[in-house]
């Protein structure tokens, strides 16, 4: 989805605010949220569903919220949607239903022949799905070169929406900064992005 989470290249956020000697957690509740996520991720939802639940936050709330506030929102949203907790339980502050059986991911990673090899020239597809995707907006319809081959990994676009069987090779794809940003980008600078096979079309073999 073309949400505010897809920040690469956006303007207007100002300088990077660097906190010196920052603690790992600023408040105990942040650790609580982290622990709740770690104990429920992979049992009631997967990481792609989690990321998408963060992205589904209304954009003004997303930008206002601190990092662990977004996490809390996502954990709460998913536990409600998956029936692990109910709105009544949240309102009353007491559990009245036992948690459903957790799922276990036992699907083996299939052996897949990658369609592309290092050095292949590719073009990213110009897609704007309503749902989750890991092809950032700034890299759609751009020319790049395959540098590394990974996976296969589950396609996030499917895995975030109930289809957990769409395994694909994934590639580190290198783009010239000028291909992405135009002539004021550094001449030799590059951006490398991990992209799933179905995001890519072959342009040229080396």
């Amino acid at each position, binding site marked *: 989805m073309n949400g505010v989470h897809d920040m690469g290249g956006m303007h207007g956020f100002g300088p*990077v605010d660097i906190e010196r000697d920052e603690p790992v957690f600023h408040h105990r509740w942040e650790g609580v949220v*982290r622990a709740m996520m770690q104990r429920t991720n992979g049992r009631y939802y997967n990481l792609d569903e989690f990321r998408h639940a963060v992205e589904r936050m209304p954009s003004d709330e997303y930008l206002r919220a601190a990092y662990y506030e977004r996490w809390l929102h996502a954990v709460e949203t998913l536990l409600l949607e998956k029936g692990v*907790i109910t709105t009544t339980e949240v309102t009353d502050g007491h559990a009245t239903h036992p948690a459903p059986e957790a799922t276990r991911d036992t699907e083996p990673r299939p052996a897949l022949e990658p369609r592309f090899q290092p050095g292949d020239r590719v073009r990213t597809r110009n897609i704007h799905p309503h749902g989750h995707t890991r092809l950032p907006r700034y890299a759609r319809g751009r020319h790049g070169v395959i540098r590394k081959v990974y996976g296969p990994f589950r396609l996030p676009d499917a895995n975030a929406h109930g289809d957990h069987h769409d395994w694909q090779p994934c590639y580190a794809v290198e783009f010239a900064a000028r291909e992405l940003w135009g002539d004021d980008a550094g001449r030799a600078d590059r951006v490398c992005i991990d992209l799933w096979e179905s995001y890519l079309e072959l342009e040229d073999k080396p």
Partner: protein
Amino acid sequence: MSHDHDHDHDHDHHPEAPSPVEARALALESLLVEKGLLTSEEVDRIVSMYEHDIGPMLGAKVVARAWVDEAYKQRLLEDGPAAVKELGISYPAGTQLVVVENKQDVHNVIVCTLCSCYPWPVLGLPPTWYKSPPYRSRMVREPRTVLEEFNLTLPDEVAVNVWDSSSDVRYMVLPQRPQGTEGWTEEQLAGIVTRDCMIGVARPRIPAESAAR
């Protein structure tokens, strides 16, 4: 000061009323505890693990070894998880770590524009700035300007490689070993490898006192 009295939980021993987000987090925690999905010991264990056991000292150990042992460095660049395990660092099964090496003419830096993916098994949890909109939006678009905000000015002849971590592959930067560290022990070397060096927003520096010696 908050005047939010909508909730009726008894947060004992709390000096002030909790903020709304804290109250929400603690309310969800107590539901999960009641349902047997979490215990407060598990929360303490997870917090303590990130506060004490997992942090940039792990990555620094890996970098120092790579600086003194060329064969190790090659294994590290080839297969990150296997190489960090050699040093007793555990790496989650089924996930990938790719170490990218800085060279005389190439500087690497990592970011996650879509969320905040970070090589936590070797660097611990990311700093707030790494997760912030300014870093996420600008590092891919104007890396040199952002690096200057970290007091790192790169000459034009050094190419910047930005790695936008969009999959579950995690990236870590292997910085260049600085001149003047010949004969240093691995422990001394690890001491100058900071978190920021392994994200790529800094270069290792020799403290003034050792340089003078």
